[in-house]
């Protein structure tokens, strides 16, 4: 007998159960998946480099695409991982189509504005720190840490040599650690 959401509290169901309900045509189960993973997906897309409304559009497209391809979900990993991969691919496709300066080496485009508050970036704010990276470094590190793609998978997706991807991630990590590490407060001198 098939499961129906009428008798179930969807908020207590696992992703796997919700996907099975969706595959059976239950749209409310899919709405629960959107509610559960919407913020995570929107953040992932923003961290890759998409901006505000554009990121939300892509997140929506990714959800709709996931709904249409639910039959292809093989239950061999978390649903959000599969969702992020769909979103990542859509984002990369859009970046390539728009010829954005994704793979440039010209850092002058991304230098902070003169007079920018350095302390603001030193805060534990990952998103602000990611904004300081070159787009390709930001993309590589986000795909690796947020999208859970391996270095080889990122190289395949970006059509870059594996060594280049590794060095992008290494450089990005070094910069993130530098930016996010709190500045040691100088010890107060006590007079004698």
């Amino acid at each position, binding site marked *: 007998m098939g499961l129906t959401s009428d008798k179930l509290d969807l908020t207590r169901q696992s992703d796997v159960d919700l996907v099975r309900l969706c595959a059976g045509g239950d*749209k409310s189960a*899919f*709405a629960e998946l*959107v*509610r559960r993973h*919407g*913020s*995570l997906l*929107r*953040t992932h897309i923003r*961290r890759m480099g998409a901006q505000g409304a554009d990121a*939300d559009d892509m*997140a*929506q497209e990714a*959800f*709709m*695409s996931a*709904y249409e*391809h639910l039959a*292809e979900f093989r239950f061999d990993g978390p649903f959000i991982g*599969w969702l992020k*991969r*769909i979103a990542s*691919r859509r984002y990369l*496709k859009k970046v390539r189509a728009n010829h954005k300066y994704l793979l440039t080496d010209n850092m002058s485009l991304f230098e902070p504005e003169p007079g920018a508050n350095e302390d603001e970036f030193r805060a*534990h704010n*990952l998103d602000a720190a990611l904004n300081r990276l070159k787009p390709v470094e930001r993309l590589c590190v*986000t795909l690796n*840490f*947020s999208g859970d793609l391996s270095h080889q998978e990122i190289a395949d997706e970006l059509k870059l040599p594996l060594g280049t991807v590794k060095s992008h991630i290494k450089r990005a*990590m070094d910069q*993130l*650690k530098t930016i*996010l*590490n*709190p500045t*040691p*407060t100088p010890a107060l001198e006590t007079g004698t």
Partner: protein
Amino acid sequence: MSDMKLDDGDIRDLFAATPVYTDAPAFEARVMRGLRLKLWLRQGVIALAGLVGGLYALAQFVRVPNWTIGEKVLSGSKMARVETDQTFRAGVEFFDVIGKNAVNLFYSSMHYLGIMQTPVFFWVTFSLCLACLALYYAYSQEETI
């Protein structure tokens, strides 16, 4: 303050932390609305394709030799006119006029139906269908990771 150093695990934890969006319910509603619209449009396209297919089938059907529904209608109405009395004749003539107009309309649409019976039309629609299938397959392959 201690001189704390971030490691890879800390960065991973930062990535795992999700900010709360105040417009999350609106986003959910937007996704579901878009999904419903897309499904509705798809059903509309399927219905339209069915209509075109049905029209094509009708065009093939009327091409059957000696298939003359128009003449039958006309001869039937003539017989009725001869065999009925004067009072009833007016009514028959009225329906006769309507019938003739309908047949004329039908024959004028035969021009378009005739186009749909040509081999060119068949190959064009067949190629379009194949192209749609190929595009759908390519698109679905690209989506799948």
